[in-house]
């Protein structure tokens, strides 16, 4: 049974159609990355799936329950960590998790045990009795995540869980999400970070202006926009000669910048030795060689005509390709 099924889901605010009839399916045990820029409709979709907002059209089911007709059953099955960790700065971490345990209907003793275990798990045991207002951004997100897990939910919704975090805190959250998924939890993760979706998600849905514009595994999506290519820097005068030397090993791409040769190769890294040999036999010196694979941003550009927003420090630079392997000059 799919963990999440969405059919023609819509939400309007007055005249503005924020979510315009989206369809998606998330299987049990999957991490689904919902990728899109600010204002694309990610949070609105999550709020409908977590029963915080009523849809104005279509239907959605989570863990087999309808989000409108069986909202309470949905809420008993899911864990939610919303954008901008919704924490009370005056509570301590331990108080918050214990309160969450009560809200989820756990008996007092069990709630206390789970709270202690979760605080240990997210490395907040030492700070558990400090007020949340004094926590760092990363600690707040970890606490929010721990609170969402107190009742061992089948489906976990994470709305931009790493936005604004430093790289170390981000990596910690990623590891925790991966560990949860390894334990069988289905994760619905919204993000505006390409790297996050690429690293974590089994399947990715790209949303723009309230519509899903692409869906599939990260590899499938990237495959749709082209093969990997090798980017060679050979010096200004050697470009025509280098292009002739490697032309039969792949498909030459239009030149980009002085002294550069771009060659699409189907075999990826496996084609690098052949290219290096060909250049060597032609007596061409190579300053650098890089295997570049299409990124989800390339997919986004291909599908929407514009780049993702909010990529500051969030993985790949806007519009930049992702280097996979780098070779020394031949």
């Amino acid at each position, binding site marked *: 049974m799919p963990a999440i099924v969405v059919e023609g889901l819509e939400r309007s605010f007055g005249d503005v159609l924020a979510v315009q009839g989206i369809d998606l399916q998330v299987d049990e045990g999957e991490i689904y990355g919902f990728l899109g820029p600010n204002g694309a409709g990610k949070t609105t979709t999550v709020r409908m799936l977590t029963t915080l907002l009523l849809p104005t059209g279509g239907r959605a089911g989570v863990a087999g329950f309808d989000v409108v007709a069986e909202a309470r*059953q949905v809420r008993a099955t*899911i864990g939610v960590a*919303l954008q*901008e960790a*919704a924490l009370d700065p*005056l*509570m301590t971490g331990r108080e918050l998790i214990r*309160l969450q345990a009560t809200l989820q*209907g756990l008996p007092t003793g069990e709630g206390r045990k789970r709270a202690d275990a979760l605080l240990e798990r997210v490395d907040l045991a030492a700070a558990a009795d400090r007020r949340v207002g004094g926590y760092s951004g990363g600690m707040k997100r970890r606490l929010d995540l721990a609170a969402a897990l107190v009742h061992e939910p089948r489906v976990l919704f994470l709305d931009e869980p790493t936005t604004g975090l430093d790289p170390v805190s981000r990596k910690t959250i990623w590891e925790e999400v991966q560990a949860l998924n390894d334990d069988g939890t289905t994760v619905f993760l919204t993000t505006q970070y390409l790297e996050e979706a690429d690293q974590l998600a089994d399947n990715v849905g790209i949303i723009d202006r309230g519509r899903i514009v692409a869906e599939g595994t990260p590899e499938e999506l990237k495959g749709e926009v082209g093969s990997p290519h090798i980017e060679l820097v050979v010096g200004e005068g050697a470009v025509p000669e280098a292009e002739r030397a490697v032309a039969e090993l792949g498909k030459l791409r239009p030149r980009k910048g002085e002294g550069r040769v771009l060659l699409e190769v189907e075999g990826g890294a496996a084609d690098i030795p052949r290219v290096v040999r060909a250049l060597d036999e032609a007596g061409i010196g190579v300053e650098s060689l890089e295997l570049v694979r299409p990124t989800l941003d390339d997919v986004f550009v291909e599908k929407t005509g514009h780049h993702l927003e909010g990529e500051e420090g969030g993985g790949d630079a806007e519009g930049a390709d992702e280097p996979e392997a780098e070779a020394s000059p031949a």
Partner: protein
Amino acid sequence: MSDLATGARVVGALGARSIRQTFRRPQLMSPIIVFPTLLLAIQTGGAGAGIELPGFPPVQSFLQFMLAGSMMQAMMLAGNSGGIAFAVDIEMGFTDRLFASPIPRFAIVLGRLAGTAALGLLASLWFLAIGLIFGAHIEGGIPGALLAISLITASALAVGGIGAAIALRTGSASVVQGLFPLVLVVLFLSSAFFPQELMIEPAKTIAEYNPFSFIVEGVREPIISGIEAKQTLEAVAAIVGIILLGLGLSARALRHRLRTG
């Protein structure tokens, strides 16, 4: 565990959080205790001779007369503070955490009101203690004191309901905080701080129909003379009316918030 037991546990937990929140945020606590205490000290110190005026009800001291008004003021400000704290929860997204939990959603409002009622209880104990320390008699004895405490506690719940409704409808702490002067106007246009008989028009007529006058008289009577059925029943009726209004408005505002997100 039955739905009712679960609901009661949630209301208790949220009420406890609400009390902790008030104690940990001085700007919520000070209007409930500090401000009314200062006003009580200033009024009893400066206008104590007012009890000699013809038409002033027979009382042991001006402090004895004022205790009910101070308790009312603290109770109403507790209701306002509860509304502000609820609106802060909405603004920072904490209520989303509660709405996303498998609990009856009205339990969230009731939890907040339980906390507000507890603060009303605390305020009534504080002012009774001050009264006793500074020599005021509670003419109705322990039953009279318990009646006054119960009426104030229930009134805090009632006023908190209106504060919660405004918080839910607007989602803005500033708007709820902006009602602070209105609380004082409503109080001064009741018999909280001055006997109705000595007021001039139109304040006298407004005070006569102001439901908070009925409550304050219900609280004052056991302090200055003893328990009287008429005043008690009028106070209870006024409180029940405000509770129904507050809960009705809260339920409506909650539905609106859940519908619109």
